[in-house]
């Protein structure tokens, strides 16, 4: 990029986009105006490559209170409570500066939840890195985890789940997603329709000062590939969790006292986005005075103030009669506050700086009338290569199990989640280590179950199936705890959308999500698209990460993941087919990433989910664990490791032993049942049409696969718990 290039190109705008701006304004744009369009029409802020496809996602459902288009989605939990939730990525900043990149990602998603009027109650962090055998990947991994903890632990929001995966294509571009959930009284949700802003009302900017950090920030970083990553470091913002904590408390107090006509967080595109979106949603114009913005340093240019992505700022709309009361709340929390704009009739956003108009444009031209592209796409090649299902395997089964369970994709991520505060707020019934986290709704018996899942390796082989499996697995992880899956949010992590191959993957994945969400009746309430995750034409695996929320009517009926005692009967729910394509066993033991991922019969999946929810409500299950990565063998091993109860099972099957043990067929779960409830459990399974097989019983320190091999819980635990610390060179 040379300095002689026209300004609009340097701001990331195409020539035809520039022409469109000239047409909208009826004149040549001023520099500040171009900067505003550049930020707002960036891929990150405008979803210009994805919008056309996102529209095909199912968004309607009886539980949905707020669907896509707001800062976050919301579902009805009953009894007047709403859960607000959303997922976002901070992958690009994290690739450059892992600690701050991940930390500010947490800060941003938390403000999204607060701006809906909800108290943030839980965070989940789905992460994908390159293999830990490489130094740089270890640096990214340790930095991202420390950043998530460093920020999340300081704001009093428990981090209760997520997942950590490793795959070579994510070496240059780690995937750092973060999901936040908040609770609010359904009547108190802040949305564009629940509060009405009036002409003459004031926009209050409160929180941190505005500085030169993050100029262009996320909106630029996340809208191009990172081939010049090192030079982009100054674009990464710096987080201040202490300020965020005060911002949360002050914002919730402003809402509780009824002082607001609107609330918006400042994220991508900074003041430009917050002011234009607030005005556009109110159907009003606005006059913005940049001289009123508290600055961190003197001499900032209008475009810098307008697009700075300094963290920990919020924008409130207040009626002039409530200004003093609102100021007092901010003062009490020690937050700087300034009136920076006034709403007015019409739809024009006017920006002044030192008495001069530096921008004057229709607010909606920034927010709603941006470009939209139907980019060329290429159908992904049909899943191929040698299918590992039919590869010969004559190794030892125990050795294979120990290898799979010590694979970083399967192994315990205790090293990660012990760095996160999961206790604060005192409502965490289950957290990391459980298939889904469960958080109580204060003052009720309800629990909200949360899971986040991506199926990158399946997606690499078949983007449609990868996406659909991610939805199914997230729903299953919620259902094994006994919770009824309600709705999803998502983060769609892909490469460069300007390449038809990537766009083809994206479109297939959207179809997969749409089909699965429709069949499982878990509508999409919002989400985030993260494109340009590639370097030198090597893209990440196409990985939609699904954040699922479900509700347990009585959290005390939550079903644990592990076997809680000896003397219980163990059953496999669902059926195992010869499906090793894309499996952990195929990658770790056979060194094959090829073939076709397991089939997904959404009817079977739905039957399993409804069985699990009903069985939990009837208190029939002592434990239930999703059967996925590593197959049946790993599901049994994990259930044993959890509380130290071994088992003896007989796997009778027409399949070769290694296929029966490690196939990753969908729609399965391993459950344990007290002897006096077996009969009712089996009846219920048959009523739901779920295949059910009795495998054996729990108990003792040993793990016995009859006729195959034997080991101990301790040996399995050592492999499972020790794998990641060993890769990091730590004593176990």
């Amino acid at each position: 990029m040379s300095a002689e290039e026209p300004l609009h190109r340097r701001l990331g705008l195409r020539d035809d986009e520039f022409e469109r701006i000239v047409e909208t304004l009826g004149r040549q744009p001023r520099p500040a105006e171009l900067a505003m369009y550049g930020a707002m029409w960036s891929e990150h802020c405008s979803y210009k490559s994805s919008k056309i496809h996102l529209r095909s996602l199912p968004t309607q459902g009886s539980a949905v209170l707020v669907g896509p288009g707001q800062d976050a989605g919301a579902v009805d939990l009953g009894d007047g409570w709403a859960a607000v939730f959303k997922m976002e990525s901070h992958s690009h900043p994290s690739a450059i500066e892992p600690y701050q990149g991940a930390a500010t990602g947490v800060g941003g998603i938390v403000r999204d939840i607060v701006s809906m009027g909800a108290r943030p109650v839980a965070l989940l962090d789905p992460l994908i890195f390159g293999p830990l055998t490489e130094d740089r990947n270890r640096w990214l991994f340790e930095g991202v985890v420390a950043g998530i903890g460093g920020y999340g632990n300081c704001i009093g929001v428990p981090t209760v789940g997520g997942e950590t995966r490793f795959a070579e294509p994510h070496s240059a571009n780690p995937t750092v997603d973060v999901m936040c959930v908040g609770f609010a009284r359904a009547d108190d949700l802040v949305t564009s329709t629940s509060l009405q802003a009036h002409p003459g009302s004031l926009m209050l900017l409160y929180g941190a000062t505005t500085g030169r950090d993050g100029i262009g920030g996320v909106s630029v970083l996340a809208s191009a590939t990172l081939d010049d990553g090192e030079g982009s470091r100054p674009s990464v913002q710096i987080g201040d969790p202490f300020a965020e904590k005060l911002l949360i408390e002050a914002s919730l107090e402003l809402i509780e006292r009824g002082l607001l006509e609107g609330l918006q967080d400042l994220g991508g595109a900074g003041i430009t986005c917050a002011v234009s979106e607030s005005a556009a949603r109110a159907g009003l114009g606005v006059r913005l005075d940049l001289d009123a913005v508290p600055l961190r340093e003197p001499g900032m240019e209008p475009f810098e103030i307008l697009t700075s992505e300094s963290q920990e700022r919020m924008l409130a709309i207040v009626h002039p009669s409530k200004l003093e009361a609102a100021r007092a709340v901010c003062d009490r929390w020690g937050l700087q506050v300034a009136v920076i704009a006034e709403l007015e009739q019409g739809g024009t956003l006017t920006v002044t700086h030192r008495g001069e108009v530096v921008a004057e444009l229709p607010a909606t031209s920034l927010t709603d009338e941006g470009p939209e592209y139907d980019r060329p796409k290429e159908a992904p090649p049909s899943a191929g290569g040698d299918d590992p299902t039919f590869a010969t395997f004559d190794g030892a089964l125990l050795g294979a199990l120990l290898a799979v369970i010590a694979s970083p994709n399967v192994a315990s991520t205790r090293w990660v989640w012990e760095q996160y505060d999961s206790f604060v707020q005192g409502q965490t019934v289950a957290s990391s280590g459980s298939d889904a986290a469960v958080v109580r709704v204060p003052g009720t018996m309800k629990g909200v179950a949360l899971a986040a899942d991506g199926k990158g390796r399946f997606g690499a082989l078949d983007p449609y199936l990868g996406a659909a499996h991610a939805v199914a697995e997230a729903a299953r992880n919620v259902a094994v705890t006994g919770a009824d899956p309600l709705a999803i949010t998502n983060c769609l992590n892909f490469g460069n959308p300007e390449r038809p191959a990537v766009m083809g993957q994206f479109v297939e994945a959207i179809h997969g999500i749409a089909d699965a969400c429709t069949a499982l009746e878990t509508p999409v309430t919002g989400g985030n698209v993260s494109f340009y995750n590639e370097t030198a034409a090597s893209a990440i695996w196409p990985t939609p990460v699904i954040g699922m929320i479900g509700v347990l009517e009585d959290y005390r009926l939550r079903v644990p993941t592990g076997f809680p005692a000896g003397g219980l009967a163990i059953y496999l729910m669902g059926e195992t087919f010869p499906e090793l394509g894309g499996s952990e066993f195929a990658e770790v033991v056979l060194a094959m990433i090829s073939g076709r991922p397991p089939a997904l019969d959404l009817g079977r999946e739905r039957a399993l989910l409804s069985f699990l929810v009903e069985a939990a409500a009837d208190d029939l299950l002592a434990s239930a664990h999703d059967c996925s990565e590593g197959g049946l063998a790993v599901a049994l091993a994990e259930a044993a490791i959890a509380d130290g109860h071994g088992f003896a099972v007989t796997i009778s099957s027409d399949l070769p032993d290694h296929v029966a043990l490690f196939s990753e067929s969908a729609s399965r779960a391993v459950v344990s049942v007290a002897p006096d409830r077996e009969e009712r459990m089996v009846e219920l399974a048959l009523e739901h049409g779920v295949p059910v097989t009795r495998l054996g019983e729990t108990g003792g320190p040993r793990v016995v696969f009859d006729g195959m091999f034997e080991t101990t819980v301790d040996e399995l635990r050592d492999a499972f718990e020790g794998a990641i610390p060993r890769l990091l060179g730590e004593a176990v």
Partner: protein
Amino acid sequence: MAGSARIGVITFPGSLDDRDALRAVELMGGVGVPLWHGDRDLRDVDAVILPGGFSYGDYLRCGAIAGHAPILEEVTGFADRGGPVLGICNGFQILCESGLLPGALIRNRSLRFICRRVMLRVETSRSPITADLVPGELIEVPIKHGEGQFVARDDELRRIESEGQVVFRYAGPDGVTDDAHNPNGSMASIAGVRNPRGNVVGLMPHPEHAVDPDVGPTGGQPLLASLIARAMAGASA
């Protein structure tokens, strides 16, 4: 319950477990009284809890700025009069910074934040939270901190030990203290200490997150029950 002890919980900017401490107090039968860092008023409470969190962002040293908050003068006077004071995690750091308790808390040996359940061995009954417990008793309570490694100068440590000021040590399930069960590298596995008079106590683990069996262990129950009973006794004395 009429006439129950009033237990104050101070909120500093950046306090995180303040609501949790109030809830735990209520669950154990006390009356939780919110206190604000900027006030010079203890609202007639019978005991004071300084909760966990990152007061003022902990940007100087943990607890260093909170040690100068207006309400701390009141807490100091309250402690001088023999009132029961409990500092949890960041609250413990504040009490050390303000000189009410000996020693200091520095970064964990691993240099990482650690959140996990630990076993604590009770070392003395002479503190407002262990009065109902027997030395040697084991309780399970979670820790969650990045700077919880207890250190003291040699002479100070000798005095703390010889005066019986150690209230809790990190231990294994069998009660043995060793390196493997010392999560943060604290000297002599010390998890909590008291002042010489025995009315001020601080610990890194979180008893307020160990009262409700649905969301954690229950080792905090006897500690808070003891605090409430001591506060009651003081109030009626």
